[in-house]
């Protein structure tokens, strides 16, 4: 039950700024995910919150208390490491109870708390084992159990699922979400996997080069990226970008001319741009549709069939476009196809990378994550 606030956090490593002034507010019981490419500073930021890394300037506030100089153990947080960082010479029970042992909690009480955490994670049968005798997923659960036992105000996760295989990752993702509900705790989660970010987060923080690019709900990031970086980073395959020329800027939106000659009216705020400007148009592969009357035409160069969906790489006016279409398409490489898109799905980015604001907000942006889960949907209704 805790809130976290970061005020203009800066981290210097021997003269290079790794974190360049981050402001963030995490509400009580929120599940916040930090995503970004490698080296964006997301892990450093998490380690600063944990107290494992010092803060060069700025304040870290937990429940309103300034925590900059407080040691990692006294902040009331617990962390799950990517490598699990279990103590190899201790049994599962000792691993989970280590913090309590250091805090000189009596043995009986310690055992009770460990058993409670073991029950939540279904680890009761493994308590006597050494970490070496566990599978990857079990080790991960022990690491989470060790975090639970401390009864922290905030859980920190540093890429906890990246060492697991794909099937286990899916399972752990659901389990972590369930755990979040069961424990009702604030959680901060670092990952480079956007599926983890999109499925688990209440709020995603996209970081790049030590700067927060955007903070928002998964759907807000997907439908209303603040800039070109976020647009390209969220969503897979990547959003297609193409330079377009502005023909007309009016109240209903900006009318742009595509390289092939087609003209589209994109419903965005037109203030600040005028006819003749060059903008960058972004459109997600899944929003491009094959259409025999479509305004764009190109030759297929690569086909990736995934069964359910098929990705087509289409060469069109010197640009490589990616389309995600139905799994049943029967096109062959070197076929010519025509395609198009709904103008409302397109995004326009100015020269500095910032997106022009859409005139209408997407209806799913304000759906809360909890509404996506059966257990609490019942509680809500």
């Amino acid at each position, binding site marked *: 039950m805790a809130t976290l606030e970061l005020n203009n956090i800066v981290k210097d490593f021997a003269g290079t700024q790794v974190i360049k002034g981050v402001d963030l507010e995490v509400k009580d019981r929120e599940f916040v995910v930090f995503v970004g490419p490698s080296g964006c500073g997301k892990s450093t930021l998490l380690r600063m919150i944990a107290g494992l890394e010092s803060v060069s300037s700025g304040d870290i506030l937990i429940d309103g208390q300034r925590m900059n100089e407080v040691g990692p153990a006294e902040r009331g947080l617990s962390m799950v490491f990517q490598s699990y960082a279990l*103590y190899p010479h201790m049994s599962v029970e000792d691993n989970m109870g280590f913090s309590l042992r250091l805090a000189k909690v009596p043995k009986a009480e310690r055992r009770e708390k460990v058993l409670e955490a073991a029950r939540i994670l279904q680890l009761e049968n493994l308590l006597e084992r050494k970490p070496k005798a566990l599978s990857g997923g079990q080790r991960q659960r022990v690491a989470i159990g060790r975090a639970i036992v401390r009864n922290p105000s905030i859980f920190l996760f540093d890429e906890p699922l990246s060492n697991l295989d794909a099937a286990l990752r899916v399972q752990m993702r659901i389990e972590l979400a369930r755990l979040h509900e069961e424990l009702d705790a604030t959680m901060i989660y670092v990952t480079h996997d956007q599926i983890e970010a999109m499925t688990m987060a209440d709020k995603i923080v996209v970081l790049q080069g030590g700067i927060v690019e955007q903070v928002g709900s998964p759907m807000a990031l997907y439908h209303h990226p603040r800039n070109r970086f976020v647009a390209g980073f969220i969503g897979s395959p990547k959003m297609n970008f193409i330079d377009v020329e502005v023909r007309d800027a009016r109240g209903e939106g900006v009318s742009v001319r595509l390289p092939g000659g087609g003209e589209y009216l994109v419903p965005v705020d037109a203030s600040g741009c005028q006819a003749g400007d060059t903008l960058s148009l972004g459109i997600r592969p899944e929003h491009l549709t094959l259409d025999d009357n479509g305004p764009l035409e190109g030759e297929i160069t690569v086909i990736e069939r995934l069964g359910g969906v098929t990705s087509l790489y289409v060469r069109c006016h010197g640009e490589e476009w990616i389309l995600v279409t139905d799994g049943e398409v029967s096109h062959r490489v070197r076929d010519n196809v025509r395609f198009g898109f709904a103008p409302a799905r397109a995004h326009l980015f100015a020269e500095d990378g910032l997106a022009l604001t859409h005139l209408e907000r997407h209806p799913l942006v304000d759906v809360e994550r909890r509404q996506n889960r059966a257990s609490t949907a019942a509680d809500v209704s």
Partner: protein
Amino acid sequence: MLVPLCMTLWFSFQRYNLLNPFISGFAGVDNYTYLLTDPALWTAMGNTLLLVGWVLAITVVGGTLLAVLFQQEFFGRGIARLLVIAPFFVMPTVSALIWKNMMMHPVNGVLAWLFNLFGFQAVDWFSSLPLTSIILIVSWEWLPFALLILLTAIQSLDDDQVEAARMDGAGPIAIFWFITLPHLKRAISVVIMIEMIFLLTIFAEIFVTTSGGPGLASTNLAYLIYIRALLDFDVGGASAGGVIAIVLANIVAIFLIRTVARHLET
């Protein structure tokens, strides 16, 4: 390997004196009874155990603490590591000579000078504390070895584990006790095993400094065998001593290898 072993066994049952060819023939177990009833053997065995025990204690404890120290970041760490490992490369005879003439000499030694500087009486190390002096010299020689092995072991300690322990509320001492030391367990048992094999046969340091004296105060088993064979010219008795040393070393080795093997398994 078998030939010298068999010859030693053979000689240990012979009357064989290097100075007097008329003393000869089969001795039966006389060499052994004579040796085992000789109080010098028990003194030498006691000295051997003391020597091995103390040197092991000093090098393992000191090596572990120094390994933790040298793991920390500090200015000039590379050079400091090099310097601290250097004594291992000095041959035992030379280092014993250096200690005898430059460090522990009651008049010219560095230690005597230091003692005088602080107003204490200089100690004549080799006559008043002979075994202690040997222990000090041998420890100085073997500390770098222990440090080297333990330092490499400590470097393989996962940083995440230390950080997890910090998050769990462990201070530096708790981290050392609960994380670092268990991690070093294997390396420590390897150090103990290797050192023990070499420490049982310490000879040069004693020969160069105290010559086993005063009396038998710093004579260990290896040195006693040397006295029997080459000072008393009693090859038969020396061989019997040698056989006893072999038996002793094997008993130690069996115990050690079993414990180490158990550690390595887990």
